[in-house]
Each structure stands twice: as structure tokens, then as C-alpha cells.
């Protein structure tokens, strides 16, 4: 049943078009892109996403300012829903659109960043052989991501969750002739898929206890302490932990895999093998925050289980610090950005983890969503800027760069704005969101607050290390082949995003997004901001001192910290640990016995069946001699035998 409730048919169709237009682009370009519309494929896909972005802005305006509020509280509205697969009354996989503040915000973020990346790629990937394929994959990704954020049913979310995984796989492996890209896309897919197993089991447990897959009903049933569903979910326990907590932890494992949180982060740095605009879209702004979105979507349920929330907080803060330390030592600019992404997602996660539900307690929730929003803007900008640098220099390595500010003036300015934003310098966007996160942490957990504070200083340091290494440092290697910044199509997204990164902090975010739908009054305490700003500036000036001019101070420091530096440079050996566990332990202890069993027992049984059949048939095939008279003798013997049987034995 397709129901379009209370807003008229227009809203329903407009909403449906938001995800369906990119899907149309995927289908058309996938089917006809290689031959018929090769030349205009980029323009075609971009215009579809443009319409989609326009519709989501329209939806956001309508939701936040017109029909979203009921008595001062933002409602969860389901304008479209149809039952797709019904298991039993109440349990069904529905396809629908759920509008609430976070999904509407994500609609805007996804379509906006996707549009920017579409425009940017027009120039960045110009002349590529598989240009239309690239745009069709982008369309598939945009479709899946939009489907994920508006999902009204947890299983619908899971379906789109896997679809984003697939499109991420396809896009990382876009340069399929590079072995490193092929390895990276497989790694990304396998690691996230492994984590998704947890998500699936979590869904099954949650839906088993709640008796539904629908988000609204599920949240309602599992957050009202008096319902039988809630009582049974908290009463049942396994290894001393309630079923509800288990389910939430498993769901969180899925989210951690997609969001590249420690220790499931290993795929994200390698995913940088994809084209840079893809990294901006998928591995910085949208897909990797799906885990944060998932926790936020189920936040009311999470807030019923303190242990699960604590896990979220600690995994978040560990990832934030861990990734920031690694980011300080990497030399590949995209990898620095990848670790920085991981660190920022850690910030969002622990903000959710320290948050409570409702009212003033929900500050962490609002802060996480706010940071998600601003981070999408400035991190996409950073990636696109890095793309412009790579486009100019044809290298990812910092040592090949330096002194580029004269050649890339627009990129330089926009990159600087993004660096200031991520470092939390007022009045850029990152300052406001990070401040809220720190405040939320301060109110709830001192340990987390202090680690977060140090991490935000580190953030400023590694971002400006990157900035100075690219644009200052050694005086420019003479770039004779200087061919400009990449044209209008590449500069427009940079400029637009930098406006966003500079100004988005002034949006009164708490008015729109909060844990319970009521506007949250966010008060800024200026005294509180002194410490983070001071640390941020300290980070910036340290980076300036070390990297603005070419010198060997940084090497000296790295040398004096040799142990820690080496550890961070080798990413704390997590990759090696994974390889050790898989190759040495799992392969030897599980793989080899399984292979032996397969070879000898399973294969042996099959071969034995075949061999014995062959043996027996060799023995008895002489009976079929082709001679009629022999057959007649057998027949006669049979008849006589039966006759004797019936006459003498059987009576």
C-alpha cells in the first residue's frame, strides 16, 4: 500500500524523486553511457543531482520551517511507506521515507556534497576512458546513501547500507588496472562486510525482542520501560549482559566498521586509492558518517543501555586520539586526511556516547550532528583541495610539494579556510561544533574531555603541518609545466564549500536538531573556549615553526621521539596485527584443518561414491550383452524362480 499522508501528492513525489533521480542517472549511464551519451554523461548526471539537491533543500526548508513542527517539537513524519516483504503481522520489511531532523539534515548534506563532487569531477576526471562508468557509480552511491538516511525501516537501512558498501567498493576500485587499488577495494569491502555481520545480528536481536522492524515502533517499544518488549529484552541475558546491550553493541560494531573506528579502521587509509573526489564524497563526508547516523537514529534505544553508550564513547575517543597521532606522521596527503577523518568521526561518536536523551542532557547528540554537518563541509573541501594539488603536481607525497601558494591561489585560500575550520579557530564552522562536543564531554566525563582536548590540539597541528608542507616550506620547485588550477568546474565547488566551512557555524543548530525534537538552547561559555582555542593556536604555531620554512627541526624532534614516532609512522602496527592474526593464526589453525578435512573427508566421500559405482558397474555390465537369447534365459530363470517361490515356499 502506498500511502501519501496529509501533505498532498506533491510532497510525496518530490521526496521520492530525491533518491530516484540519481538512480535514474546510474541506470541510464550504466546502460547507455559507453556508447550513446559518452560526451554528455557528466553533465547529465550532474544535472540530475542538481535537481535532487534542489528538492532536498526544498524539503529541508519545508520541514524545518513549515510543517515539521507540532507544538514546538519536530515530529517524525513518514510521508511514504509501502510494505515490501511481510513476514508476519507487524514484522515486515517496508520501503519508506522517514523525515525527522537528522534525516532531513543528512538529505541536505548528501545531495550538496554529491553535487559539489559531481561538478568537480567534470574537470578532475576529464578525458578518462571510463568517465560515464564513474558517473554511473556516483549515481548509484548517491541513491544508496539517500535511501539509507531516509530509511523508515531498520532492514531498509541495512539494504541501503550494503548498497553504499558496494558502490564504495566499485569506486575505490575505479582504477582497476592498479594492483594497489584492487587490493584496497577488496580490503574495504571485506572489512566493512565483516562488521556488517554484527549489524545484521544486532538487527535480528532487536527485532526479535521488539517484534517489529519499523524504526518508530521499535524505538517506542524499546524505550518505554513498562512494555513487555522492553522488560524481556532487558531481562534476557547472555554472559551477564542483557540482550538489549548485546544487540546495541552488535549494531555499533556495524557502525564502527562503516565509520572506520578503531580497530576496524584499517580499510579507510587504503581506500584513498580511489579518485580524490570519491574520497571527498564517500570517505570523508557521507558514507563514513553512516555509522554515526546509525547510532543517532537508534539513539533513544542506546540511551536505555549505559554500557553500550559507554562503549560508543570510549571507542570514539580512542579512535580520535589514535588517528590524530598517526596523522601527524604520515607523508601521503590523502592519508593524512583519511586519518583526520577517522579522528573527527571519533569526535562525533564519543559526543553521542557521552550524551543523554532529552533536554539539556542531549547536548552531545546535537553536538555530534552539528559536527557531522560542519565536518562534511570542511572535510570535503579539504579533499577537493588536495585533489586540486594532486591534479597540479601528479603526486600524493608531501615531499614533492611546497611553495604552491603562488600557483594555486584559490586552492590555497580555500584550503586555509578548511584548515582553520577543522582546527577549531573562531569564527569558522568547526569551532562551534567542536566546542559543543567538548562542552558535552566536560559535563559528563572528565577523562574523555581531557583526551579530546589534547586531540583537538593535535588536530590543529597535523592540519597545519599539511597546509605548510603543501603551500609554504621549500620555495617552489620550478613547475615549468604549470597548467593552472583546473578551471571553473574545479574551483566553483571549492569556493562554495569554503563559504559553507566559514559560515556554517552560525547556524543555530540546536534549534533544529536535538535528541528529543525540542529546540535546544546552546549557550556558549567564553571562558570554556579559552583552553581549546589556546591549544589549537599552539598546534598551529608549532606546525608553523616546524614546517613553514624548510629546516630540519621536524626531523630532530622525530628523532628524539624515535619510539613513539616509529610507532605512529607505522600506524601502530594494526595492519601487521591483522595480517598476523589472519595469516598466522586463522589460516594455520582454521584454514589448514578445514582444507585437510575438505580434501580428505568431503572430497574422499564424493570420490568413494564415484569409484564404487564404477567398480560395481564394471562387474555387472556383462549382463547386458545385446544377445536376445541370453536375456530370454534370464527371463526364464526368473519366471521359474518365481514359480518355485510361489508354489513351494510361499504357498
Amino acid at each position: 500500500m502506498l500511502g501519501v499522508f496529509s501533505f498532498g501528492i506533491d510532497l510525496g513525489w518530490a521526496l521520492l524523486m530525491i533518491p530516484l533521480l540519481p538512480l535514474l542517472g546510474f541506470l541510464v549511464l550504466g546502460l547507455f553511457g559507453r556508447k550513446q551519451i559518452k560526451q554528455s554523461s557528466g553533465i547529465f548526471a550532474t544535472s540530475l543531482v542538481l535537481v535532487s539537491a534542489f528538492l532536498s533543500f526544498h524539503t529541508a526548508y519545508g520541514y524545518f520551517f513549515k510543517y515539521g513542527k507540532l507544538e514546538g517539537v519536530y515530529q517524525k513524519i513518514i510521508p511514504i511507506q509501502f510494505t515490501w516483504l511481510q513476514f508476519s503481522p507487524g514484522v515486515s520489511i517496508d520501503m519508506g521515507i522517514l523525515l525527522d531532523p537528522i534525516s532531513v539534515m543528512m538529505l541536505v548534506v548528501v545531495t550538496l556534497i554529491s553535487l559539489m563532487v559531481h561538478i568537480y569531477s567534470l574537470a578532475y576526471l576529464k578525458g578518462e576512458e571510463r568517465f560515464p562508468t564513474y558517473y554511473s557509480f556516483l549515481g548509484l552511491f548517491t541513491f544508496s546513501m539517500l535511501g539509507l538516511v531516509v530509511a523508515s525501516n531498520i532492514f531498509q537501512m541495512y539494504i541501503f547500507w550494503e548498497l553504499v558498501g558496494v558502490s564504495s567498493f566499485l569506486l575505490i576500485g575505479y582504477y582497476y588496472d592498479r594492483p594497489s587499488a584492487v587490493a584496497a577495494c577488496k580490503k574495504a569491502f571485506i572489512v566493512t562486510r565483516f562488521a556488517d555481520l554484527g549489524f545484521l545480528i544486532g538487527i535480528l536481536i532487536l527485532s526479535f525482542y521488539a517484534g517489529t522492524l519499523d524504526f518508530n515502533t521499535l524505538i517506542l517499544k524499546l524505550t518505554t520501560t513498562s512494555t513487555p518488549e522492553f522488560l524481556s529484552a532487558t531481562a534476557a541475558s547472555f554472559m551477564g549482559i542483557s540482550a538489549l546491550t548485546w544487540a546495541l553493541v552488535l549494531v555499533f560494531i556495524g557502525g564502527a566498521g562503516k565509520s572506520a573506528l578503531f580497530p576496524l579502521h584499517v580499510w579507510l587509509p587504503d581506500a584513498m586509492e580511489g579518485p580524490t573526489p570519491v574520497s571527498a564524497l564517500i570517505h570523508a563526508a557521507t558514507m563514513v558518517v553512516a555509522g554515526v547516523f546509525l547510532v543517532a537514529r537508534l539513539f533513544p534505544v542506546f540511551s536505555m543501555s549505559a554500557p553500550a553508550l559507554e562503549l560508543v564513547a570510549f571507542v570514539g575517543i580512542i579512535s580520535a586520539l589514535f588517528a590524530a597521532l598517526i596523522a601527524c606522521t604520515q607523508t601521503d596527503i590523502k592519508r593524512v586526511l583519511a586519518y583526520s577523518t577517522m579522528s573527527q568521526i571519533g569526535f562525533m561518536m564519543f559526543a553521542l556516547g557521552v550524551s543523554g536523551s532529552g533536554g539539556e542532557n542531549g547536548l552531545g547528540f546535537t553536538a555530534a550532528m552539528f559536527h557531522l554537518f560542519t565536518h562534511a563541509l570542511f572535510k570535503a573541501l579539504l579533499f577537493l583541495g588536495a585533489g586540486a594539488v594532486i591534479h597540479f603536481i601528479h603526486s600524493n607525497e608531501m615531499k614533492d610539494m611546497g611553495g604552491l601558494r603562488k600557483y594555486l591561489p584559490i586552492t590555497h585560500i580555500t584550503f586555509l579556510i578548511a584548515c582553520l575550520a577543522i582546527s577549531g579557530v573562531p569564527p569558522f564552522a568547526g569551532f562551534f561544533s567542536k566546542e559543543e562536543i567538548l562542552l558535552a564531554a566536560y559535563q559528563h566525563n572528565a577523562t574523555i574531555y581531557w583526551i579530546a582536548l589534547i586531540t583537538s590540539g593535535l588536530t590543529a597541528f597535523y592540519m597545519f603541518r599539511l597546509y605548510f608542507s603543501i603551500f609554504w616550506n621549500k620555495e617552489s620547485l620550478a613547475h615549468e609545466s604549470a597548467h593552472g588550477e583546473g578551471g571553473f568546474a574545479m574551483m566553483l565547488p571549492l569556493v562554495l564549500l569554503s563559504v559553507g566551512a566559514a559560515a556554517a557555524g552560525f547556524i543555530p543548530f540546536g534549534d533544529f536538531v536535538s535528541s528529543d525534537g525540542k529546540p535546544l538552547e546552546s549557550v556558549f561559555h567564553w571562558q570554556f573556549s579559552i583552553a581549546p582555542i589556546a591549544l589549537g593556536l599552539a598546534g598551529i604555531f608549532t606546525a608553523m615553526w616546524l614546517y613553514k620554512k624548510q629546516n630540519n627541526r621536524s626531523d630532530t624532534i622525530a628523532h628524539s621521539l624515535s619510539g613513539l614516532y616509529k610507532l605512529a609512522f607505522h600506524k601502530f602496527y594494526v595492519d601487521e596485527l591483522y595480517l598476523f592474526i589472519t595469516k598466522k593464526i586463522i589460516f594455520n589453525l582454521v584454514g589448514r584443518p578445514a582444507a585437510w578435512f575438505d580434501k580428505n573427508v568431503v572430497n574422499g566421500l564424493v570420490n568413494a561414491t564415484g569409484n564404487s559405482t564404477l567398480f560395481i558397474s564394471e562387474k555387472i555390465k556383462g549382463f547386458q550383452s545385446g544377445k536376445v537369447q541370453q536375456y530370454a534365459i534370464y527371463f526364464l530363470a526368473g519366471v521359474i524362480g518365481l514359480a518355485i517361490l510361489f508354489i513351494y515356499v510361499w504357498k
Partner: protein
Amino acid sequence: MMEPGLYHVLIISTALFFIGVFGFLTRRNLITMLMSIELVLNSVNINFIAFNKYAWPNKLDGLFFSIFVIAIAAAEAAVAIAIIINLYRSHQSIDVENAADLKF
């Protein structure tokens, strides 16, 4: 002089049956084998007639059955001879030993 009874007739038909079976199993010529089958069928006919006459003299079922058997025997002979002619065309022989193409 003794009247011939049921047993005499049955002995004849049994002898005829086994002569037919023996011929079918030992002859190599297909025509002769066909003739042996006719002997087997006729021994059955004799049995039908004999039982009808001696056991149920006022019924006619046995007679009817033997007429059916004669009709079927005629049809069977026609089919068998057609097969034999075709076999001769392809194998240049009607020796049953040579018609062993349907072996394993």
C-alpha cells in the same frame, strides 16, 4: 481303448511349450526362433481349449481367448518378419549372434 483326458492334453501342451522354449534358446536363425515362439503360443492355445472343455464345458471364455491369441500371433509374426527384413538389409544376415549391437 481309453478316452483321452485332460492330463493327456496337458502333457502334449507342456511338451510343445518346452520344445518351443528350447528352440527359441538354441536356434541361431531368427526365422526359426519366430517359429519356436509360434509353438509356445500354440501350446497356450491348447491349454485354453483343454481347460475350457474339461473344467467349464458350458462356457466359451477359453475359446475366445485362443482366438485372440491366434490374432495376436499373426500380428506379431508380421511385425517380427518386418524387423527381420530390416535387420537383413543392414547386417546382411539373419543370425541372431550378429544382432548384438545393443550391448553395454
